[in-house]
């Protein structure tokens, strides 16, 4: 009876053990399957807030896809000026055809001829000077006087060919608004640095700022196309956010690989050393960590849909303590002489598991706090650690007791290690006074030396100081200065957004006039709102009225009305032109410039869906280096405004 009962218990236990193993193997297989299908991401956006405020949303948006994050600054150095200019033209041409860049600017405006024609044809919708007053007798007279006074000057050379069609000079007025004030120096038809020693180019990648693979491809294309030029003695300089982020990723990857390799070698070495070189024991010893990593990856993948590279890196470090579980078990569960098989496991479960379990609970409590973080990256890290540690502990508790019920055999190098430690313990007391003196000296140094506390975030930046210096130099030469402030406005549709941008621009104009800011970029400067265009169109008078006014206005002027018939015809054509929209600009360089400033979004979501972002202010001349926000509390500055010091952004590029 007793023997029967004992046999059943044994059979049941054996069955249970096999059951545990089967369940464990199934879990491992499932985790491997999930991990294999997991999407691993590397962009830093997971470590940015997941529920940002309206201000943060605009900033994040800029970081991910804003034009500032897509800039590539290119410098060509060395060789003769002519060689640099030729290289600049050829490289720009090659990159424009390469398809990886939205826009490539090098000062060479010859390819904008078609755009110039397009703008000229729509000048009465686009010129800021067009209003009801413009086509009265006085308005026409003033406009014609303005324009004719430019004849015989360098500016006059540009308007001479069109003055009979555009006597009031709307072309000039459009150009004044659209051209940036901070143009680079021109030499031989291309941009050069202020000292003339470098040709400079500015390109925006088609790939998002967050798409590092795309950015890397774009940079590779620049290098490859430049290599193909064979420009004598000219060298290529590359900088900008794209080059920074790709370079940083390379560096981080290299260092992580190196450190991981070093760490792995050290751990394997120590384990081999401690367990007497037994490979089997080594494999068993790393089992909980391996299971932990697998479980962590699977849990994060199921909960978040992807696993961040940084989660994997930091998470593995955090659950590294699971190596201890294996070491405790393998040593503490070693069987005593004469004990039956499985005695070690039973003893360990009774004596040591409660301690390990307590450690597990406290660790889980600590890491669980991360689960509630507003940063998805940190939440991933929390989940990874909790799942990983739990899996490692459960593997130790339920799998080890089955597969290595009596711990690790042999004593390995532990005796020698013990002896070495013993010898050290004998020597250490003699070092008491020198060590005390050293401690005192360290305390004194801490008290007297300047604080070593470094609060500068930039010191975490893996980009080297030479790279940053080069970036600043090229930025200054190109006039792509750092923006102090981004002003964002949102509206339900494109028309509303452009109208809002216009309203914001009017308030910013007063700041420019007072010298508080140096200038700003706004999409409304390139494309006025439909309402404004409509107003301008309505201001164009009927043929008879315009002809009569023109006759009067030119009565004793230098340009007689009879020569301005083309002007009358153009105004009448403009009266039937439909207002321009973003869609009608497709295919022109204006579309790219506008896409950098106008973002389609879902305005219904409220604050976190800007229908547009616009208007980067640049600090005024007096505030250039301080990058201060444009008077955030001033009633004349449109809300919301905030300083964007953590980002480097640049003004959008000229379009002529």
């Amino acid at each position: 009876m007793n023997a029967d009962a004992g046999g059943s218990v044994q059979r049941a236990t054996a069955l249970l053990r096999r059951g545990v193993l089967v369940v464990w193997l199934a879990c491992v297989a499932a985790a491997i399957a999930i991990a294999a299908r997991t999407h691993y991401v590397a962009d830093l956006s997971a470590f940015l807030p997941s529920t940002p405020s309206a201000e943060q949303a605009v900033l994040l948006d800029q970081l991910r896809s804003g034009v500032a994050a897509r800039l590539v600054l290119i410098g060509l150095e060395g060789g003769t000026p002519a060689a640099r200019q030729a290289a600049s033209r050829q490289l720009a041409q090659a990159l424009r055809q390469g398809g990886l860049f939205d826009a490539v600017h090098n000062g060479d405006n010859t390819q904008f001829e078609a755009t110039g024609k397009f703008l000229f044809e729509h000048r009465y919708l686009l010129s800021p000077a067009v209003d009801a007053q413009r086509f009265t007798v006085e308005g026409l007279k003033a406009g014609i006087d303005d324009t004719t006074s430019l004849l015989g000057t360098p500016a006059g050379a540009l308007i001479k060919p069109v003055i009979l069609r555009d006597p009031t000079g709307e072309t000039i007025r459009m150009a004044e608004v659209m051209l940036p004030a901070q143009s680079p120096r021109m030499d031989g038809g291309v941009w050069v640095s202020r000292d003339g020693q470098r040709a400079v180019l500015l390109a925006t990648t088609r790939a998002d700022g967050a798409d590092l693979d795309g950015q890397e491809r774009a940079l590779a294309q620049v290098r490859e196309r430049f290599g193909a030029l064979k420009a004598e003695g000219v060298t290529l300089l590359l900088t900008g956010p794209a080059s920074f982020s790709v370079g940083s990723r390379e560096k981080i990857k290299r260092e992580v690989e190196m450190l991981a390799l070093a760490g792995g070698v050290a751990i394997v070495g120590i384990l081999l050393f401690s367990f007497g070189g037994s490979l089997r024991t080594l494999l068993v010893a790393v089992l909980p960590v391996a299971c932990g990593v697998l479980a962590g990856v699977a849990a994060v993948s199921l909960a978040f849909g992807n696993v961040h590279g940084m989660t994997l890196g930091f998470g593995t470090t955090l659950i590294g303590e699971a190596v201890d579980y294996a070491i405790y078990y393998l040593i503490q569960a070693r069987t005593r002489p004469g004990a039956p098989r499985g005695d070690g496991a039973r003893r360990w479960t009774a004596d040591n598991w409660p301690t390990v379990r307590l450690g597990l609970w406290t660790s889980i409590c600590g890491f669980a706090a991360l689960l509630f973080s507003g940063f998805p990256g940190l939440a991933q890290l929390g989940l990874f650690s909790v799942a990983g540690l739990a899996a490692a502990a459960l593997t130790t508790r339920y799998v080890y007791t089955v597969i290595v019920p009596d711990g690790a055999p042999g004593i390995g190098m532990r005796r020698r290690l013990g002896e070495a430690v013993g010898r050290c313990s004998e020597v250490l007391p003699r070092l008491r006074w020198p060590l005390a003196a050293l401690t005192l000296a360290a305390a004194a140094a801490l008290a007297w030396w300047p604080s070593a506390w470094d609060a500068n975030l930039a010191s975490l930046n893996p980009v080297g100081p030479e790279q940053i210096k080069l970036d600043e130099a090229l930025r200054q030469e190109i006039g792509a200065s750092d923006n102090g402030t981004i002003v964002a406005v949102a509206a339900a549709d494109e028309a509303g957004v452009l109208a809002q941008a216009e309203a914001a621009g009017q308030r910013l104009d007063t700041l420019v006039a007072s010298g508080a800011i140096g200038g700003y970029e706004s999409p409304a400067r390139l494309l006025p709102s439909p309402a404004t265009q409509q107003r301008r169109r309505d201001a164009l008078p009927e043929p008879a009225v315009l002809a009569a006014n023109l006759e009067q206005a030119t009565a004793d002027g230098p340009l007689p009305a009879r020569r301005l018939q083309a002007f009358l015809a153009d105004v009448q054509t403009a009266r039937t032109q439909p207002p321009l929209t973003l869609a009608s600009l497709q295919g022109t360089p204006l579309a790219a410039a506008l896409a950098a400033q106008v973002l389609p979004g879902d305005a219904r979501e409220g604050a976190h869906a800007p229908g547009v972002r616009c208007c980067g202010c640049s600090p005024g001349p007096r505030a250039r280096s301080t990058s201060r926000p444009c008077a955030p509390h001033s009633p004349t500055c449109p809300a919301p405004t905030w300083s964007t010091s953590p980002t480097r952004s640049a003004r959008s590029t000229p379009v002529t």
Partner: protein
Amino acid sequence: MRLPRLLPELGLALLLALPLQAHAFGLPELARLMSQVKSGEAVFTEKRSVAMLERTLESSGRLTFAAPDTFVRETVKPRPEKVAVVGNQLTLTSGNRTRTLRLDAVPEAAVMVEAIRGTLTGNRQAIERNFVATVSGQPQRWTMDSCPLSRRCASWCARCRSPASSRGCVK
């Protein structure tokens, strides 16, 4: 950017204040003469004939110069306008509109400004960098003919003559 035409009047005005000297007179001497003048002010009247216009354009105003690099041309009639060059900064004001440009971003304008500033400050290198200059006459009545070196500038300004001729830049 109508700067070339300012030369004759300003040069003449400055010259009246200079002591008489009598030796062989060339660009080096003229440069030395001009470099002694640190600032000046003059009124000007400008007449311009443009082929496509039916009558001559007339304007008048004031010119101001202060060594080493400030040059302002303020038109009073027929409409208030102002062209100010300070260092590398070119500011154009017309009515209530003001526009600022970097001078070296507009090479054509830079050439003209260099020529005027170069003459006024007696900076021979600045003149010779962009022009072939021929000086003739005497210190009290000299003439400088400057022909632009760059073909692009020559396309709209064939020659500047100062100060004997009042026609200035001719095309």
